[in-house]
């Protein structure tokens, strides 16, 4: 808290004394804190490494002392994983899919959650002061990895590309291909045109629906990555703005809000990953057939 507010007071100083004091602004991009050769180590990257280390240490600490009868730490995590497994089961509706996708989804959850919470740790005062064209600027060491668009974009790509690979693994390349470029619809057009001429209209529509799905995959990447980035980054800006208005007291409830938002966003990200994997693993065709059968039976009932 105290260190956070150090930054906030610096913002207010900037507005009064122009470029004389050390400024710190919330920038859209992560700022470099060190260089390894020509490689820039940004503060987000540094925090991400810390988070990876934390996750690694926790998992090793549990793995090395794993017991048949859980106690303490292991007990807590078994409880968490069991609850998460049950929730994942209710989303996928299939134990087999859950068993395959859950490790990835839960890893994403832990990674994003710890990243989000690292950003609001009261360590914001540690950093370096650098000369820029606008005078001295303060660059903190800690900035949530998820407050950098590159991290969230990478996570979004992993989720969407992973879901497509999972789809290929579970329903096959040809069916997956037909979800996006629906050649099967044209095949059916030739086959069924004698029986039902309406297929001449419906098949091209099906084809364009497939193209829409293809565009939808890119929209998924964009919405996944920008949702997480937007929420975490906006949280940082919000905390800074509140600290600038009234230090110490006003940011307190908002820090509570940010803890909650961090949890919810991590939850939503992993939940949507699960949903995308489940959608990719289900066969559209089989579903449609069932649907039409259902409708047929309905018609029969109506007729009678």
């Amino acid at each position, binding site marked *: 808290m105290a260190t956070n507010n150090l930054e906030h007071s610096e913002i207010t100083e900037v507005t009064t004394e122009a470029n004389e004091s050390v400024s710190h602004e919330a920038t*859209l991009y992560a700022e470099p804190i060190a260089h390894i050769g020509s490689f820039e180590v940004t503060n987000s990257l540094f925090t991400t490494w810390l988070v990876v280390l934390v996750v690694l240490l926790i998992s090793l600490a549990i793995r090395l002392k794993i017991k048949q009868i859980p106690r303490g730490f292991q007990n807590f995590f078994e409880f968490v994983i069991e609850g998460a497994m049950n929730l994942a089961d209710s989303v996928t509706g299939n134990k087999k899919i859950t068993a395959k996708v859950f490790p990835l989804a839960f890893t994403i959850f832990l990674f994003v959650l710890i990243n989000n919470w690292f950003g609001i740790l009261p360590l914001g005062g540690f950093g370096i002061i650098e000369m820029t064209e606008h005078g001295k600027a303060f660059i903190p060491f800690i900035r949530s990895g998820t407050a950098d668009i590159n991290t969230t974009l990478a996570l979004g790509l992993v989720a969407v590309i992973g879901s497509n690979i999972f789809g290929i693994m579970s329903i096959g390349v040809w069916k997956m291909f037909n979800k996006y470029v629906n050649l099967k619809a044209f095949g059916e057009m030739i086959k069924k045109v004698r029986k039902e001429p309406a297929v001449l209209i419906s098949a091209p529509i099906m084809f364009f629906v497939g193209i829409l799905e293809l565009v939808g995959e890119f929209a998924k990447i*964009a919405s996944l990555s*920008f*949702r997480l980035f*937007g929420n975490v980054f*906006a949280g940082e800006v919000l905390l800074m703005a509140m600290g600038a208005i009234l230090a110490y007291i006003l940011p307190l409830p908002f820090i509570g809000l940010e803890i909650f938002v961090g949890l919810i966003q991590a939850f*939503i990200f992993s*939940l*949507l990953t699960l*949903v995308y994997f489940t959608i990719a693993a289900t066969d559209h065709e089989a579903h449609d057939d069932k649907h039409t059968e259902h409708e047929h039976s309905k018609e029969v009932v109506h007729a009678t």
Partner: protein
Amino acid sequence: MEPMNIAPLAKALAIGLGAIGPGIGIGMIGSKAMEAIGRNPEASGKVFVPMLIASAFAEAIAIYALVIAFSIK
């Protein structure tokens, strides 16, 4: 007269107007979910996850506005 920089105004309008729709949408999702839980408290576990997913989709629209707001120079 000096030309005024209206880019901040454009940013504010983009996110401000873009947040109205999703705000209403998320409010409606939440109220309907509460209603559903009120009618059938045992279903709260089943309502919760679809509610979150639906509000995530509604929220995505606000994020498009946020992206536009960020990209206005």
